[in-house]
């Protein structure tokens, strides 16, 4: 198969040799002269193994670029070797026969130069032997990362991966292959790469590195390039890589590239991407370098050293040849978007979240409610352990449905309540087996036999189905609702309709920023849109108002009052609610008083000079108010600053960047005090959900403040440095949505499963007081709970595995209901079945949540490493057990998981796990909590943003333009792009975009006159403008939070911000590029396999 394909590359390797020689010579020659060796050494030291690879790759990359596709294959090998070196060089060496053979020699020569003794001692391969190399590698890695900013390391990284990528890609032709894979080899789709000489090269790389610097810098490379350029495609690459490895310096090489005109061309073609990644500078270097200059200071140096002919570095993986998320998404859309997804069959893998499809509920819950990491569960725990594929379901019990799909039917069983299994208490569902003519039913979860209640009895037809099968939603549908009886209510009393309490910070900051004025104005109209159930005339929700700074002000807005009354409670240490009657009121009845109040609040505090605020007492107050009113409800908290006033829950500023990358970093994610946790518990007990709107100008300790919203199923919104002019729209939009959305209160969710597996772990925004019940003070259609399952017994292939998620909640009209979702999964005894029925997006959702929770307890690095190793294990297991035999050098990915590496890499380099310098502690805590309750679609786009070119498609077309991969090399200077990740929205304008486009979008004559950082497009009557604005609107409509638009001009300062989201590129904070990471992954896998 593909695997075989790599073989050909082998040939190319052969070619490279010449290149090698060339390099060698170069190395040999130059090493002497320049001091750099030491620095390189340094790099080597720190760099982790997998990065080392990159370095070598880098140099190759350039050449590869020069050499088009062919080169990729050629490079592949080279890359592989590199992996081999790192991980299991020896082993690999063994297997990778031909190519490696070839290389070794080459590498050897290199080796000698730098670390002659070591290299020599072992066999050509041996020298690279794991121990030394690995260590070196790692060290290098570290170095690279650390020195990230410096030109050399980054470049090295970038290169490294490219090479590896190349290998991968080699085996995996481009996207086409993918396309084909599914068809042909669907399941085992794998990317095979030959790891020929790679090992050697790698090893040599480190070694060389030391020696290299000089050499690399010097002319040697150029020559090699020149030479290799031709062969380079195939062989030149690898050799180069080798040398590169040695010389993480490759970057240096590039700088030179900039100089020479020759190299550029190739660069453009394929390399640009790489350049972008880390050396983005390189690409642009020629022209734009100045911008990057600062960052890549290293470059100049390089330039100085060797100077001109450097261009050679060429060899790299062709990004086009590695699995492309865009392609996968497109394919799925094309293949599955057209027809409805019918949920009747067990264990069906639904279409991707990015695909628009209609669901027909025929007995299983819609994927909008439940998505699983795998729809085929291993029968035994041994298998599960072997595969390491997490078994998890991402459940969104109250998910909103598209208008075409009907909401779950409400079933009313009257006073007797829903029919349930006597033993496990599972609710009646389509999988229950009626026996004995319908007099009893056997529970599909625990097999217990229960009498059918007389009023529920019905005869069975000849197939054993009840006659009323189609009349009863609970027998024929996957999702439905029961009306709960009083037994399901707190204190055995039917709940009262919920209440919303608006609690507004009126301290100096809030008033000055205009927030108070804005909010009060908005609330006047917003109160007309409180959620109402069904077609109800008016909302049953009552409202209350509190303002606060250091003290709390409650308002009596009873309808009988001529004017509102304010009641100040200063005793924040012992919060209580000062009034009963008139605090929570019906909006329509009290409208004049409320309006008067909202008019007066901004005035009253216009001159406030109070800067201190309290926080916990505010929540306590809200909770107490709900308690006093004996109803569930939601608090809307609008808060501006760290609560430093003397009160319970008082916080201090503990933000300390010095903690980053230390064992104590986790404390930044943990709450400062345990107080908020117990407060959250009380809130949950009362059914008090807290939504927090933050408007901080500085550190507010989101990690602590967010505890209560998080545990009560609330949301946090954060508007840093809020300014009415610029943030008004975003805030108001979020607020409106948040107020209007349908919420379930005082909810308890229980997940029941077939005997054999058990829900063991839960992720999301909720509180758990025991191990099985997920308690949610509030739950809306955006909140997701991820549940992990573990085996506690065997499953049978016949029975499959069933999941029933029951959510007991109070609707916004105060009705107590049970929503039931059922899902049946297949069980397998063959690992291949497991891998064939996986859902990578869901997997990533789980992994991200798992990792994000991990940072609370472990250093970030540990978390990253364990993520990588788990994925490596998953993939290695596949490789070992499912893939057709092939060369160890080949990277083979299961079709369903071929995006795992790229997505995982995105998770790894997300702000939480690998923060950049500009990411604040609050941001990280904020994102961490956000992600915790995201659903699959959200995590998907959050980690891998959507990037759409805007001018490629005719402006008249209504179709969404095809997305491009999130990499700088995909950006054309002449185009305009829209990027979104669910939280951010950028409009990137290329420097040489047509004037006409500029004119029609921005209404200014030229690129230079576009205001950078613009947050809205002018409303212009032309197709392009309209189309872009429509597109933006449609993006916003798809997301639960309003995305503020930021217009970014190419080469503008803001572009840094934008580039952060080009996730396939190397990130400034040290995150690997896709290609690099893939190489690394490959190496890890090989290590496991050996």
């Amino acid at each position: 198969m593909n695997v075989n394909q790599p073989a050909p590359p082998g040939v190319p390797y052969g070619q490279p040799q010449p290149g090698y020689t060339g390099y060698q010579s170069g190395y040999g020659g130059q090493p002497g002269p320049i001091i750099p060796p030491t620095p390189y050494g340094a790099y080597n030291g720190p760099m982790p193994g997998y990065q080392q690879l990159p370095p070598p790759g880098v140099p190759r990359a350039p050449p590869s670029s020069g050499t088009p596709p062919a080169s990729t294959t050629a490079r592949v090998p080279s890359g592989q070797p590199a992996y081999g070196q790192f991980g299991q060089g020896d082993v690999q060496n063994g297997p990778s026969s031909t190519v490696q053979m070839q290389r070794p020699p080459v590498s050897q020569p290199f080796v000698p130069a730098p670390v002659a003794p070591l290299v020599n001692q072992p066999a050509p391969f041996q020298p690279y032997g794991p121990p030394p190399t690995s260590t070196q590698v790692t060290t290098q890695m570290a170095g690279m990362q650390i020195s990230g900013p410096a030109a050399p390391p980054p470049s090295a990284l970038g290169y490294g991966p490219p090479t590896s990528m190349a290998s991968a890609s080699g085996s995996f032709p481009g996207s086409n292959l993918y396309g084909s894979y599914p068809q042909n080899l669907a399941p085992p789709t794998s990317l095979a790469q030959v790891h020929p000489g790679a090992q050697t090269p790698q090893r040599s790389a480190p070694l060389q590195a030391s020696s290299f610097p000089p050499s690399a810098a010097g002319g040697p490379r150029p020559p090699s390039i020149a030479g290799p350029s031709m062969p380079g495609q195939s062989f030149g690459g690898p050799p180069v890589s080798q040398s590169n490895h040695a010389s993480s310096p490759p970057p240096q090489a590039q700088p030179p590239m900039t100089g020479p005109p020759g190299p550029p061309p190739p660069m453009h073609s394929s390399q640009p991407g790489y350049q972008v990644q880390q050396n983005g500078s390189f690409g642009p270097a020629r022209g734009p370098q100045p911008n990057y200059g600062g960052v890549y200071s290293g470059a100049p140096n390089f330039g100085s050293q060797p100077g001109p002919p450097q261009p050679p570095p060429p060899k790299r993986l062709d990004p086009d040849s590695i699995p492309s998320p865009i392609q996968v998404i497109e394919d799925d859309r094309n293949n599955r978007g057209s027809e409805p997804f019918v949920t009747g069959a067990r264990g069906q893998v639904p279409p991707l979240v990015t695909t628009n499809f209609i669901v027909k509920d025929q007995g299983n819950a819609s994927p909008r409610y439940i998505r699983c990491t795998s729809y085929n569960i291993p029968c035994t725990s041994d298998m599960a352990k072997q595969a390491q594929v997490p078994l998890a379901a991402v459940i969104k019990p109250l998910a909103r449905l598209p208008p075409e799909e009907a909401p779950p039917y409400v079933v009313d069983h009257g006073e007797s309540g829903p029919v349930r299994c006597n033993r496990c208490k599972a609710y009646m569902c389509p999988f229950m087996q009626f026996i004995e003519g319908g007099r009893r039913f056997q529970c599909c979860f625990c097999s217990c036999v229960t009498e059918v209640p007389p009023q529920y009895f019905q005869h069975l037809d000849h197939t054993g189905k009840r006659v009323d099968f189609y009349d009863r939603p609970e027998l024929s549908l996957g999702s439905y609702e029961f009306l709960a009886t009083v037994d399901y209510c707190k204190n055995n009393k039917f709940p009262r309709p919920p209440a919303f309490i608006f609690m507004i910070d009126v301290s100096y900051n809030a008033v000055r920023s205009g927030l108070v004025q804005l909010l009060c104005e908005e609330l006047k109209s917003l109160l007309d849109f409180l959620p109402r159930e069904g077609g109800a005339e008016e909302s049953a929700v009552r409202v209350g108002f509190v303002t606060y700074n250091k003290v709390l002000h409650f308002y009596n807005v009873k309808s009988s009052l001529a004017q509102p009354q304010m009641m100040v409670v200063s005793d924040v240490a012992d919060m209580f609610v000062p009034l009963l009657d008139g605090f929570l009121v019906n909006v329509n009845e009290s409208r004049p008083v409320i309006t008067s109040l909202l008019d007066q609040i901004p005035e009253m505090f216009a001159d406030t000079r109070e800067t201190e605020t309290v926080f916990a007492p505010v929540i306590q107050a809200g909770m107490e108010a709900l308690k006093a009113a004996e109803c569930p409800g939601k608090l809307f908290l609008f808060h501006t600053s760290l609560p430093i006033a003397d009160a319970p829950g008082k916080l201090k500023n503990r933000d300390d960047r010095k903690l980053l990358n230390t064992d104590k970093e986790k404390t930044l994610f943990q709450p400062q005090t345990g107080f908020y946790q117990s407060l959250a518990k009380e809130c949950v007990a009362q059914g008090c959900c807290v939504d927090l709107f933050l408007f901080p100008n500085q550190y507010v300790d989101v990690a602590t403040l967010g505890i209560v919203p998080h545990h009560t199923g609330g949301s946090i919104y954060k508007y840093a440095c809020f300014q009415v002019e610029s943030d008004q729209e975003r805030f108001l939009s979020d607020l409106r949505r948040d107020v209007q959305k349908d919420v379930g209160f005082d909810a308890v969710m229980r997940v029941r499963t077939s005997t054999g597996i058990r829900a063991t772990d839960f992720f999301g925004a909720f509180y758990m007081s025991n191990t099985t019940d997920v308690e949610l003070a509030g739950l809306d259609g955006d909140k997701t709970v991820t549940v992990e399952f573990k085996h506690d017994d065997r499953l049978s292939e016949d029975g499959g595995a069933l999941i029933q998620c029951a959510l007991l909640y109070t609707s916004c009209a105060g009705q107590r209901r049970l929503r039931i979702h059922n899902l049946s999964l297949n069980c397998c005894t063959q690992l291949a079945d497991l891998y064939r029925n996986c859902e990578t997006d869901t997997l990533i959702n789980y992994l991200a949540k798992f990792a994000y929770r991990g940072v609370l307890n472990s250093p970030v690095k540990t978390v990253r490493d364990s993520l990588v190793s788990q994925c490596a294990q998953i993939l290695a297991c596949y490789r070992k057990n499912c893939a057709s035999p092939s060369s160890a050098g080949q990277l083979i990915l299961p079709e369903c998981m071929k995006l795992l590496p790229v997505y995982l890499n995105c998770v790894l380099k997300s702000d939480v796990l690998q923060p950049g310098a500009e990411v604040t502690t609050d941001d990280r805590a904020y994102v961490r909590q956000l992600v915790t309750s995201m659903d699959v679609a959200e995590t998907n786009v959050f980690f891998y943003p959507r990037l759409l070119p805007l001018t490629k498609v005719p402006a008249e077309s209504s179709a969404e333009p095809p997305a491009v991969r999130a990499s700088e090399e995909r950006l054309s200077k002449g185009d305009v792009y829209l990027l979104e990740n669910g939280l951010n929205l950028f409009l990137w304008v290329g420097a040489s975009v047509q004037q006409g486009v500029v004119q029609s979008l921005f209404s200014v004559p030229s690129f230079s006159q576009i205001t950078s950082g613009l947050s809205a497009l002018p409303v212009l009557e032309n197709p392009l403008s309209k189309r872009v604005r429509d597109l933006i609107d449609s993006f916003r409509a798809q997301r639960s939070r309003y995305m503020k638009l930021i217009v970014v001009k190419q080469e503008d300062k803001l572009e840094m911000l934008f580039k952060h989201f080009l996730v396939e590129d190397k990130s400034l904070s040290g995150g690997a590029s896709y290609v690099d990471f893939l190489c690394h992954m490959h190496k890890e896998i090989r290590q496991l396999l050996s």
Partner: protein
Amino acid sequence: MATYLEFIQQNEERDGVRFSWNVWPSSRLEATRMVVPLACLLTPLKERPDLPPVQYEPVLCSRPTCKAVLNPLCQVDYRAKLWACNFCFQRNQFPPAYAGISEMNQPAELMPQFSTIEYIVQRGPQTPLIFLYVVDTCLEEEDLQALKESLQMSLSLLPPDALVGLITFGRMVQVHELSCEGISKSYVFRGTKDLTAKQIQDMLGLTKPAMPAQQTRPVQPQGQPFISSRFLQPVHKIDMNLTDLLGELQRDPWPVTQGKRPLRSTGVALSIAVGLLEGTFPNTGARIMLFTGGPPTQGPGMVVGDELKVPIRSWHDIEKDNARFMKKATKHYEMLANRTATNGHCIDIYACALDQTGLLEMKCCANLTGGHMVMGDSFNTSLFKQTFQRVFSKDFNGDFRMAFGATLDVKTSRELKISGAIGPCISLNVKGPCVSENEYGISGTSQWKICSLDPTSTLGIYFEVVNQHNAPIPQGGRGAIQFVTQYQHSSTQRRIRVTTVARNWADAQNQLQHIEAAFDQEAAAVLMARLGVFRAESEEGPDVLRWLDRQLIRLCQKFGQYNKEDPNSFRLSDSFSLYPQFMFHLRRSPFLQVFNNSPDESSYYRHHFARQDLTQSLIMIQPILYSYSFHGPPEPVLLDSSSILADRILLMDTFFQIVIYLGETIAQWRKAGYQDMPEYENFKHLLQAPLDDAQDILQTRFPMPRYINTEHGGSQARFLLSKVNPSQTHNNLYAWGQESGAPILTDDVSLQVFMDHLKKLAVSSAS
């Protein structure tokens, strides 16, 4: 004797002083043998329409420990412009302003008729009066409405520049901010949590202003009103606002389930009121006026739990030590009272409820600060309404009959020392040389603070003669006492009233008759009664009675004329003749007897007894009984069951009650409607006469007495029957059926029996 009576009356009118002895025994030993201590009832601010205040400052003795005020008793050397202090004999130069002084041109304070003189002092900031209403909202709708109206009405009675504040309480305590437009603001406190003054001020946002206030007060008194302007506002500025606010006051909204009392946070509300004033206006005249309609049921100062099935403590419970909350609550209110007194504010308690409201525990708030205590059945009664209105009554000058923050400084000549005082005051703990170790009442000091007083506030001040037994009668033959009362007049002026009195010394061994003749038995009875009541607050009732009896017997032994062991020979001189009778009625009075009274009532009665002037006190001890008949003009009759005759109308004034009692025949006549017949117009007049007289009393007395109109056989007649001397009871059957009087169904001893025993004991040599 007539001369003495006139002398006493004259002195009382001029100086507001009544001494138990108007000639003083010259030695300590003799003085103690007099049984009744040398003491006086002082009414510091006795109304003196004839006494215009002088507009300058008093001249003080220059000796730092003396500082007595120049007075008519001083010897003056007009040539040398010197005067000699009559207390310490220090010779003092007159101040420059007195340069023109001569025998012919004397300053007022040297004229004998100005033994009492009032100075207006122009110093210190003038802060307006402050009235802080603390209003219970756990009332019945009717009551609350009546109270709201009374309060609204009171706004019009206040001086326009007075500051008013409003605190309401129920389950929570709300401090209302009065300055806000458009929205009414209040600060709310939990009713269960005791807060320190500091916390309260912090929470009310008063802390910051308070600091500069203390520093800058002398410099910038004007800045001060601004500080607390949020809670205390001049009446003229916010009366509309406040009227509305009061109008909108609702009953406490928190639900009261059946079988429960409403949760009432009186303790915290008072504490906050005290804290508020403490932080904003220390040492200026301020009244905290507490209106409560029931007992505090939660938080500090709670008197009873909210379970209705547990009744509020009775005397029985207290004796059995069964009053769970009493000690703690009392401690809380005492602490508050002391703080209030320290700051010169006063607390009035207006408690209107059918059941007890915890006056027993709260009494110290009024007692120690000179505040009023009013007890009624409901706010919707004229008793409360008129009493409350009368708080704001004005004197002949149009000034309020109230003064604030007074200090009373007593100076004595060397032969005397000060034993203590009993009245609405607290000690300032000024221990000078003239402070005796022999202690009566609030003792150990020569200065007291009276946070609030009115023209009738009267203190009993007790002295000790310290002259040695064999020492000669002191030089000049007179002992002198000076009372210096500094206070804030209701016009916010600072004033000083100085009263200097002197009495002759007499050697008790050979001039006993003089001393005897100068005995003021009325004053003595009241002074002894105050001692008794003061003791009763802390001791068991029977002990006090025993002590009183012993004193009476000793007095009789000392001053009676009798043959040993011959009770029939016992005689008392005129100046003592009424004294035993006073004691008899005192023993029966609610001040010493708790039977039939709730603890609250006892506290209420005692409160008033300890502050009223002599006349009123005597009425309290021995109610007055007038008889109306066709036989002649109305006449006072004996407070005796024999006075209850069928053809009489009786009017009894016990101070707390005015009872009109129609005799059996009269009642029948009235029932028959004779008063409406033109020919019996005289009967109509007869019926009307006591009503008019009662009206006169009702009009003037504070607090307004309970007005009872009853007749023979009426249930309310018990008020009369319980007061009269039970000379005829069901026991002395021989009286049954006699034409006079009505038998009283009681086992109490009658005055006759009492006197018989007294005589027996007095003449007995055994005791």
